[in-house]
């Protein structure tokens, strides 16, 4: 027992040392390797049998670089929120690694995990349900300090919370108010202040503005961009609104049914998409400009997303794809630079998981 705790302490120290080491801008801070999460489907009450699995996330890999924003888009049920939970260690991964500064956080537990969690924080979608209605704003934003007292010693907390309110553009005198006294946009600012409380390096934003009114969305997006510059944050920005993702992201990953379909810089994805799903997704976005729409080709997909409990063989998109051939049903396309674009100095040469990748401009950039 004594040995074990000693072991534990050395790993905590090792993790702490690794995590305190600074990462240069442009270096990967978070590396995700073949991450898998299957939720078992069970039958029976007394004798539970596993009869299958919902393959929510089925082998995805990506890097998050220091100081950048990685957007993740996809339809509901594609696993993007599960990815967020896995990165936060709120769910245990079935397989794969999440390397934070080289430390695999899926294997950590106890004190070592606590150290990591301080540096990876989250902003949730719904500002109405993610704030406890019985706690004051001061208590909500200050709660992280109860768990990580080393960040703010007891006497300084009130001041810290007021500073945070000021940073997110709220009046510091609101510290004793309750969430219901605020509008949706203001509540989301409270959620962001709570995410910032522990000076994290990575913030995972799961649909942070989708519940807000259009005129307030822009305010919150601008705030998040300013905070990123001010505190040198790296964001993972999960959303279904492709226009907002383009605005805020440096790189974008498109997910479909638990897999990454395509990933690249924002110009690569939006102007030179090579995966049919990305093209369909982009063409379906309503653009508030009738003249720009006239030049756009609309691809309307038929049918719905298949069930992740029983995904199609081969390429998962083939059931809705207009390019699908026999090969798509048998071979799983890998996420890599497509063969035909290899060595070509073109924005089309980015990772895309399609056997028949080709460029198609669907956004209509003049």
């Amino acid at each position, binding site marked *: 027992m004594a040995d074990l705790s000693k072991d534990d302490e050395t790993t905590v120290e090792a993790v702490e040392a690794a995590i305190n080491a600074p990462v240069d801008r442009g270096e990967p801070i978070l590396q995700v390797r073949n991450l898998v999460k299957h939720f078992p489907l069970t039958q029976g009450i007394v004798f539970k049998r596993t009869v299958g699995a919902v393959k929510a996330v089925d082998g995805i890999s990506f890097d998050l670089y220091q100081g950048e924003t990685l957007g993740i888009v996809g339809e509901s049920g594609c696993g993007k929120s599960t990815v967020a939970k896995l990165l936060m260690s709120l769910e245990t991964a079935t397989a794969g690694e999440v390397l934070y500064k080289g430390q695999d956080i899926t294997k950590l537990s106890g004190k070592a995990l606590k150290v990591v969690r301080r540096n990876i924080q989250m902003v949730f979608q719904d500002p109405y349900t993610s704030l406890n209605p019985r706690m004051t704003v001061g208590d909500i934003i200050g709660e992280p300090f109860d768990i990580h007292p080393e960040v703010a010693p007891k006497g300084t907390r009130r001041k810290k919370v007021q500073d945070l309110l000021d940073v997110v553009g709220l009046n510091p005198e609101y510290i004793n108010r309750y969430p219901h006294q605020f509008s949706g946009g203001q509540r989301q600012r409270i959620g962001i202040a709570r995410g910032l409380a522990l000076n994290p390096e990575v913030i995972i934003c799961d649909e942070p503005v989708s519940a807000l009114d259009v005129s307030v969305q822009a*305010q919150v997006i601008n705030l998040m961009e300013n905070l990123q510059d001010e505190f040198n944050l790296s964001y993972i920005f999960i959303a279904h609104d492709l226009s907002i993702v383009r605005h805020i992201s440096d790189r974008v990953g498109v997910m479909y049914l638990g897999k990454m379909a395509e990933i690249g810089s924002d110009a690569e994805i939006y102007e030179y998409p090579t995966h049919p799903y990305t093209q369909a997704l982009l063409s379906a976005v309503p653009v508030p400009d009738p003249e720009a729409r006239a030049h756009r080709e609309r691809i309307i997909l038929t049918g719905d997303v298949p069930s992740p409990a029983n995904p199609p063989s081969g390429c998962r998109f083939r059931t809705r794809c207009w390019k699908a051939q026999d090969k798509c049903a048998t071979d799983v396309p890998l996420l890599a630079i497509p063969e035909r674009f290899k060595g070509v100095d073109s924005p089309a040469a980015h990772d895309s998981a399609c056997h028949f990748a080709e460029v198609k401009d669907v956004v209509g950039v003049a």
Partner: protein
Amino acid sequence: MTTVETAAESIGTTAAGGPLLEVRDLHVEFKTRDGVAKAVNGVNYSVSAGETLAVLGESGSGKSVTAQAIMGILDSPPGRVAQGEILFHGQNILALPESERRKLRGNKMAMIFQDALSSLNPVLSVGFQLGEMFRAHQGLSKKDAKKKAIELMDRVRIPAAKERVGDYAHQFSGGMRQRIMIAMAIALEPDLIIADEPTTALDVTVQAQVMDLLAELQRESNMGLILITHDLGVVADVADKIAVMYAGRIVETAPVHEIYKRPAHPYTKGLLRSIPRLDQKGQELYAIKGLPPNLLAVPSGCAFNPRCEMAQDICRTDVPPLHTVTEADGGELPGRGSACHFWKETIHG
């Protein structure tokens, strides 16, 4: 009984040329503990047969409350129509007794709600709920009603309608559920459909399918459609004209293509500028400062004045009327209207 029936039936036959629905100076109030909230504050709009009017606004702008007043499903109390007329086929339906309004709902006007999952009964099959329309309104037998339900599901392109007619709401995907809501609305072939944020809860790829279906059904049966939404992008394809609402008033009206090119109200202009664009990568987003107003204490003068960049003294004192642009104003802007003291500067600036 017979007199009631004839009265309800006479609506719909008296239409001659005029608009299908006309809302005139509608005021709706809600009594709350803290005072009277004026949710709708003098709204005027009209829809003709075969026409699509998009009502655009943020939460609390009164767009849904207006729709509820038209349908006669306002929560009352606390809500009440304080003033105004709603003319449907030329007849003021606000003056009709509840029993007659009830006959209009479903038969002559129908509504599609945002959240299909909570609008459908989870313990009844969708076929039963669709059939209920025919059983209640037309007195069909269970068997005939089921047949009609299958036809309807085919019409909104639900695959394998025959097999799925006995399924429950939770067994359908979001897009399919919204199709069932649409099927329910068109069941009795109404003259007017009000769709309240019909695609907000759906994914973009499914959103496009559902909007196309709605537009097609409308064309087929020449219905009037009121499309309530907060998304400027969604309406651009399907709407003929747009009314923008803010704090219970219409602040701008325009044919759909005009509004994107040359907004005539600072609020519309701000909204258009604050949306990130798919085809452009901007630097910083333009943000309208401040918050939507509290309906218990709407700012005096123009309700938008505390958030407006162009606001002058007159905006704080005088409520700007919805000015209809006429030939006298230059004649180049047909069908436009703006409730701004400085609409000329806005539209040209």
